[in-house]
């Protein structure tokens, strides 16, 4: 019996959420009284596997194959499936990344299991894990229990476990060569690219005024722009606003946009879906203005005003101007 943590790397570079998942593996394997195994899938990943082995775990598997060089759903599913069948873990943990969302559900299906995705906490009850996950865009939490023969699969949201709790150790590295068949890999991947050089670098901004669905119409954006101007702040937006073309994509904050940590982040009419929160919760001070007192954005806000933004923002502009003299 073991807990297996599957770390993520791309082109020899770690996805930093991997380490948080490592911590989860250390804590849960200790509570379950089983070994922790860690897998690093890829090609030419010896150095990374050796680095993983400096953290506390029983064994690191370098899941090494040239067909794992570029990520594809089919190759990664087959490779990790092979390792699971060979090592028979009780619980398999992943970071909740875009890549994991692409292949881990497929993998779980091969074991007639469901990937418990987007998990924010795990607790042990009577020897079996209870997963806490977000529901309804973060408005509610749900406790999920898994049954059946296992193994159980879960992907952990960023911030669910603290990376500074990672314990060091010295583990053995074992190379696992999965049986992969090039003709069974249906996806042909091209090199990743960015749309254009980023014209707007929000990461340097001291104050960010960010707008969400609460703005209702494109024509209303200037209401918030007034505030940004008064504060000397950069404008940003949540994904739906950029999707609708009301603000340029390059001003998007969140998992698919920029990650920012300004001195002040003002979230205006933003409900606070997790995809947005991961992009801004590192801000020093968070201000939320929203008409819904139950909006998840208030979970992370230091200061809040519950009210109609079309009344609050003009009042705020006036007060800021007054304060600046």
């Amino acid at each position, binding site marked *: 019996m073991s807990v297996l943590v599957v770390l993520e790397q791309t082109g020899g570079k770690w996805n930093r959420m991997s380490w948080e998942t490592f911590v989860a593996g250390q804590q849960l394997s200790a509570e379950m009284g089983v070994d922790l195994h860690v897998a690093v899938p890829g090609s030419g990943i010896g150095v990374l596997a050796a680095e993983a082995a400096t953290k506390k775990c029983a064994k690191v598997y370098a899941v090494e194959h040239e067909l794992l060089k570029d990520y594809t759903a089919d190759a990664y599913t087959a490779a990790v499936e092979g390792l699971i069948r060979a090592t028979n873990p009780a619980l398999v943990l992943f970071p909740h990344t875009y890549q994991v969302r692409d*292949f881990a559900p497929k993998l779980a299906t091969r074991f007639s299991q*469901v990937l418990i995705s987007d998990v924010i906490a795990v607790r042990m009850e009577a020897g079996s894990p209870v997963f806490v996950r977000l529901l309804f865009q973060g408005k509610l*939490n749900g*406790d*999920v229990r898994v049954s059946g023969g296992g193994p159980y699969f879960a992907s952990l949201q960023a911030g669910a476990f603290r990376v500074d709790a990672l314990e060091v150790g010295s583990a053995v590295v074992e190379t696992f060569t999965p049986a992969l068949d090039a003709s069974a890999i249906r*996806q042909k991947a*091209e090199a990743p*690219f960015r749309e254009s050089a980023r014209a707007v670098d929000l990461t340097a901004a001291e104050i960010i005024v960010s707008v969400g669905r609460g703005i209702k119409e494109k024509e209303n954006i200037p209401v918030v722009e007034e505030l940004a101007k008064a504060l000397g702040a950069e404008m940003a937006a949540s*994904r739906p606003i950029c999707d609708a073309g009301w603000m340029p994509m390059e001003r998007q904050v969140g998992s698919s946009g920029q990650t920012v940590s300004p001195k002040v982040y003002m979230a205006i009419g933003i409900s606070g879906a997790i995809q947005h929160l991961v992009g801004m919760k590192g801000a020093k001070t968070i201000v939320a203005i929203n008409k819904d007192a139950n909006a998840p954005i208030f979970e992370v806000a230091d200061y809040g*005003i519950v009210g109609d933004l079309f009344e609050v923002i003009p009042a705020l502009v006036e007060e800021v101007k007054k304060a600046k003299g």
Partner: protein
Amino acid sequence: MKIIVAIKQVPVRDSQLRVEGAWIQESDLSFEINEPDAYALEEALQLKEKHGGEVIALCAGPARATQTIREALAKGADRAIHVETSEENLSTLDTLGVARLLADSVKAENPDLILTGLQSDDLGYGQTGVVLAELLGIASSTIIMQVEVKDGAIRVKREMEDGWFQHITMPMPAVLTIQSGINKLRYATLMGIKKAKSKEIRLVKPAELGAATAKIEKIYVPQKNKQTQIFEGDAKQAAAKLVEKLKFEVRVI
């Protein structure tokens, strides 16, 4: 090209949710199409306009889902398959259970492409499409921002983190999960709404539902870990208090 679009009906976005048992109280809620699924439907309609063929809306849900299915037909889907579950089923079934229902109901259709939203706004597991592909034994790709059909294959633009993208080519049939914002949504026309009334909705009643392996035991409002200072009063008063904080404590004004 035969395209199936799997859509889900979810509570409208700004609903006030009340917990009831291990689910929410649904009786006083309104429902609408899951937003990413609306983009998947639009993408299917645009692919049909470009390449010809047929768009079939597929929806698992209780009787109330008929309204969402009709709206998909009004926007231009040619026909629909409604896997009718009881009210309780969809909150107790796990994704594997739902995907099995969907897989059973589309097998005989032999579609070239199955599109669905990348995740649902209610449960948010974000995997029904991928599981469906695995059950059908076909390829999949997720979080898609562009779809091109070329010589019996498809080339898609997959979104990655931090503004990165990647093109992936794969053979058809395939399942794609569509990201919000991939296209511009259309409205149903009056003519469309009229036509929808005579379009076929094939009703499938699942014989037996297997037990879920993943069960929601309890749902609840998240406990707040952070102390948020809420400024009360009318807009002017609240604004004044906030500016005072920003000036004298946060010191950014």
